[in-house]
């Protein structure tokens, strides 16, 4: 332990604790811009500076670990020198910032804006001088980069490189000319960016944003010729509430459905239905591969960020990918085939909208071989954040809405479906149905597979299923996927079934979710908190295995036949191809 003083008050803290953490543990929040716990401790932005006895100059508290040499020192966290320095740093950042706050996607949720307010920046043009001007990179389908708002904190770079093992963005050039961009200033769309959006949720400002597709939705809703349907992914209900003042991890399914109905959608579906359907097809595919010598390990295909990663970085694993479309695409495909037929609607008049925790879904809807009715399965994919914008724009007072239920037959999800939003959830859902099938379709077959739960990056488990040993692996975060796939390639790890989700912790922590500032990210495990919402919904559901879903049963009985049938293949399965984008 080290005995120190913070603003004259004595504390005893564990050796190795940074000044910033020591202060936080004792009720003092030190502001930061560049610091992201575990992935970006570079002491670059100088916002977190403090005064310390004996130090020649102000100290960056995020990268200063306290040791026995600091015994008895006094740390000042809000002395005039500290506050003046922080304010000046902000003013210097503003001198090369376009300050387009009123029209900025992050206005009201921008860490730079918040700090300016907090630290009393009363003159935004104090340091007037040269300003860099950048073209905005709109090349990608899912996002855009506006470097005129970038503060070079490098949080996006850390997310891309350290969390995802990709690194298609970095710092180019030097000094005032430094810009965060791609190699040879290529457009982002020319690179092997997988569209996961982890850079967007890491960005403190409006430099990185998803492409806003809400205007397309408003237009469709206003068109009397169109039947506009919407589906919401499992993870959306775990994060949406955060934007309306609910504590993190509060499930808001009922109010979300009510809000969608009030926005004017003609039918409100639930991607949980698509998730249950995915399990029917995927568990069937897995059993078929095991029994008939198919390619193993089989790897899940729900996460479009992971699919892009596989196609660019590990094309040799393409035969291992499940041919199942993602739940979003399955929902969309059934909407424009079965549901359209049943309702007597021309699928061309349907506008199928999805609300996703994910930016890669914007890319997925435009993929080849994702159009069961000859037209795209899903027309517009918006993120959780875009739904928040729509709800606010429509003036809906979210917390005051009644709880509502989605419309069958594309609605009733089981507990197995809702946990798709958390790492390990797809595997657990698949195991619930696969084990049931392989052990004689006994209704008492096990429900909970706790070994695959939790936020750890790589999880392994082994199950004995009807005399068959099934080894499974669950991975989230593409840097972890890279690690595991290399081990599988080298024969160091042997397994039969792998679940991969691109985002760390799974979709609950997706790149399209409500953005939490670094201050929250650094001290709360967002992945675990939001996952709790999903597991509580699973537990509360009377149906917890996908094959028990009445909606799924109905669709197979009336339309698809059996899982893996010819028709199911035509409508619910897809294909992949290697890409050679710049890595």
């Amino acid at each position, binding site marked *: 332990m080290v005995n120190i003083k913070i603003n004259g008050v004595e504390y005893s803290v564990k050796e190795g604790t940074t000044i910033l953490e020591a202060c936080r543990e004792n009720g003092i929040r030190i502001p930061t811009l560049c610091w992201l716990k575990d992935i970006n401790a570079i002491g670059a932005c100088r916002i977190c500076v403090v005064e310390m006895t004996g130090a020649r100059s102000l100290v960056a508290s995020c990268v200063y670990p306290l040791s026995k040499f600091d015994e008895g020192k006094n740390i000042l966290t809000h002395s005039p020198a500290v506050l003046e320095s922080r304010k000046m740093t902000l003013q210097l950042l503003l001198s090369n910032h376009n300050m387009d706050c009123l029209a900025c996607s992050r206005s009201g949720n921008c860490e730079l804006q918040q700090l300016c307010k907090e630290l009393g920046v009363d003159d935004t043009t104090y340091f007037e001088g040269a300003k860099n001007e*950048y*073209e905005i*990179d709109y090349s990608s389908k899912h996002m855009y980069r506006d*470097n005129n708002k970038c503060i070079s904190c490098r949080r996006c770079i850390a997310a891309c*490189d350290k969390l995802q093992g*990709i*690194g*298609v*963005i*970095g*710092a*180019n*050039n*030097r000094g005032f*000319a430094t*810009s965060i*961009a*791609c*190699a*040879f*200033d290529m457009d982002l769309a020319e*690179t092997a960016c997988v569209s996961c959006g982890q850079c967007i949720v890491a960005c403190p400002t409006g430099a990185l944003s998803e492409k806003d597709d809400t205007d397309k939705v408003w237009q469709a809703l206003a068109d009397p010729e169109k039947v506009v349907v919407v589906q919401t992914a499992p993870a959306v209900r775990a994060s949406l509430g955060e934007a309306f003042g609910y504590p993190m991890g509060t499930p808001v399914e009922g109010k979300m459905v009510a809000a969608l109905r009030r926005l004017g959608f003609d039918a409100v579906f639930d991607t949980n239905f698509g998730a249950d359907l995915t399990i029917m097809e995927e568990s069937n595919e897995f059993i078929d591969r095991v029994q008939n010598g198919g390619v193993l390990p089989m790897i899940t295909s729900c996460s479009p960020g992971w699919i892009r990663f596989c196609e660019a970085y590990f094309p040799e694993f393409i035969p291992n990918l499940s041919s199942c479309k993602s739940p979003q695409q399955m929902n969309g495909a059934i909407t424009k085939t079965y549901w359209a037929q049943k309702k007597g609607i021309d699928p061309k008049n349907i506008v199928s909208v999805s609300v996703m925790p994910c930016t890669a879904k914007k890319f997925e809807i435009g993929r080849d071989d994702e159009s069961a009715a000859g037209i795209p399965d899903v027309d517009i994919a918006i993120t959780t954040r875009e739904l928040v914008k729509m709800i606010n724009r429509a003036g809906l007072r979210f917390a005051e809405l009644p709880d509502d239920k989605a419309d069958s037959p594309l609605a009733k999800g089981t507990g197995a479906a809702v946990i798709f939003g958390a790492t390990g959830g797809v595997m657990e859902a698949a195991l619930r149905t696969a084990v049931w099938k392989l052990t004689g379709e006994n209704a008492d077959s096990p429900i909970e597979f706790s070994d695959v739960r939790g936020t750890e990056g790589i999880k392994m488990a082994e199950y004995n299923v009807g005399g068959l040993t099934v080894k499974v692996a669950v991975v989230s975060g593409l840097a972890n996927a890279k690690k595991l796939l290399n081990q599988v390639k080298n024969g160091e790890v042997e397994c039969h079934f792998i679940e991969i989700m691109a985002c760390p912790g799974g979709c609950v922590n997706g790149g399209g979710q409500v953005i939490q500032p670094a201050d929250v990210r650094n001290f709360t495990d967002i992945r675990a908190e939001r996952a709790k919402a999903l597991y509580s919904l699973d537990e509360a559901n009377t149906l917890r295995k996908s094959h028990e879903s009445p909606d799924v049963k109905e669709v197979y009985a009336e339309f698809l036949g059996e899982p893996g049938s010819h028709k199911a293949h035509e409508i619910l399965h897809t294909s992949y191809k290697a890409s050679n984008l*710049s*890595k």
Partner: protein
Amino acid sequence: MGSKEKISVPFNGTAEQEKALREMINAHKGQQGALMPVLQQAQEIYGYLPIEVQSIIAEEMDIPLEKVYGVATFYSQFSLYPKGKYKISVCLGTACYVKGSGDIFNKLCEKLGISDGKCTQDGVFSLDACRCIGACGLAPVMTINDDVYGKLTVDQIDGILAKYAE
């Protein structure tokens, strides 16, 4: 997106150069912090570091191309553009600058149609701004390969360039 200027001089790397590059990278395999020496030696082999060369380095060293590019653009010793048959350096050190070398430099940019660090499309001239070359008494100074030109004025530029243009 700094300068979106595309590199206009076509890449003319030979099979021998590529072989030398790959052998050199191989010799650094598994070595920590090898990117800097690899880039330095690659530049010795090719004279500059075009995308073709950086892509081989990235792939062989199993690091993202952006990381290679980030380092290559951070240090001024690395060049993304080839040098011309005649390499023009204009001193922008304090003495030369005060004596008007900035105008000389701008005139050259305008005349050759290239900016700092670049090479003309025909590969004849390349232009670099440099720091003090120790000939302050002759300010403003520029060099073309080994020839030194001192006490320059802007209107001398056309005549000097004409001596080199075939």
